[in-house]
């Protein structure tokens, strides 16, 4: 196994990279959007809203992602008849959908927990100032609480996104040919075990630190108002 031979696999690796990034991107985006209501429900003073959110977050944070993936992908097959009746089977039939579905719920649970912590830590003074300006309810959330929470949650959220990108390597186990899936296929053809895994490790390392860089830049941008003061 030499370097040239590895290079000949570049097109397939790029395809795999595209799937890795696609699944990660979609899950992160949808997961973030869903996390806001889940976090707000958790903070609500109504038990009926609190409990479902609590159990959802608890289940998805308390069990391995690998189990969740198998549960959704192979588990949904056990309910094919019911899902077909609901018109959902055509979605669950696709491994790609199952992967995005599972990763979305997973990251949603973690993100909701991060947001909850951040919302609770918004300084009381800011909220009171907002109220004093006549803001209330949705406007107070939109203008004061959520932006402030986003700022303080950003570093933890960055870690979550990076974690999810790496965790997406697990989708290779439900027949998807992401970066890891392609690597495993190449190995089963060439038996060049460590060469391929080391190469793949390098690619993941590069994506990780690219993400770290991007999140850091956005963090600086978000904190710009504090920079000018010092």
């Amino acid at each position, binding site marked *: 196994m030499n370097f040239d031979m590895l290079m000949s696999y570049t097109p397939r690796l790029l395809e795999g990279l595209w799937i890795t990034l696609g699944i990660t991107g979609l899950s992160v985006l949808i997961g973030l959007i869903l996390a806001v209501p889940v976090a707000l429900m958790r903070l609500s003073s109504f038990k009926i809203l609190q409990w479902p959110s609590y159990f959802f977050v608890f*289940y998805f944070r308390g069990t391995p992602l690998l*189990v*969740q993936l198998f549960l959704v992908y192979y588990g949904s097959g056990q309910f094919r008849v019911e899902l077909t009746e609901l018109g959902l089977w055509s979605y669950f039939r696709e491994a790609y959908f199952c992967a995005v579905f599972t990763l979305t719920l997973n990251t949603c649970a973690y993100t909701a927990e991060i947001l909850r912590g951040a919302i609770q830590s918004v300084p009381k003074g800011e909220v009171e100032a907002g109220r004093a300006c006549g803001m209330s309810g949705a406007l107070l959330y939109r203008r004061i609480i959520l932006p402030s929470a986003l700022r303080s949650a950003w570093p933890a959220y960055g870690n979550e996104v990076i974690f999810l990108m790496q965790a997406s*390597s697990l989708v*290779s186990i439900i027949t998807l040919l992401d970066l890891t899936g392609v690597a495993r296929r190449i190995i089963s053809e060439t038996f060049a*075990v460590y060469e391929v895994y080391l190469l793949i490790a390098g690619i993941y390392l590069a994506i990780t630190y690219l993400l770290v860089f991007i999140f850091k830049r956005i963090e600086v941008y978000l904190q710009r108002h504090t920079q000018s003061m010092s």
Partner: protein
Amino acid sequence: MFDLDGYAPIIIAGIKNTLMVGLSAMFLAIIFGLIGAWAKTASNLMVRGFANTYTTVVRGVPELILLLLFYYGFPQLVQDLAESFGYELTVDLNPFLAGTLTIGFIYGAFCTEVFRGAFASIPPGQAESAKALGMSEALMYRRILLPQVMFYALPGLGNVWLVLIKATALISIIQLDEIMRMAKIAANATREPFTAYFLASLLFLAITVVSMVGQHYLEKKWSRAGAH
């Protein structure tokens, strides 16, 4: 509901291996973490470089890839290298050992950060006064720093444990008979995948709950001890 044609008991029996590999890996991670935290603050540039590379690599590469690399890649690499020098060598890592080493290695990096934070929260005056009393560095670590570090690190270590125990599910891929692999066998044999994997998820949830209760109890006990 959870009968699974008689396969349910072997899934539940998988808890034993999950806990064994989890505890061994946690023990290893704590050792790696202590060494890592010491190395990161060391004055020797090379030692610091090693420690930084360690945490950088672990943070940047998926657990699955590291596991496969350890289990399949590493023995092959060593054997190929030995062969090129004219030696015949057998490196045999069984799933338990490969799994423990990989998980321990990965979470050692997280423990490194936990311990670094814990070392930082000890007032610097304590190390200075220990030095003033003429304690050697080793003695100072043992008598003054370590007992306190453990106290400050406990919440962080508890969190590492909660993540680590879930990560052990990955070892099913290299065929260690833990909860997840047993669930997979049961799912495929009975063709009731939802039931099998749901049972597996509940077992992990149970471990999480017990661990959280345990952590809470320990923290309470230690904080009382710390107050005196």
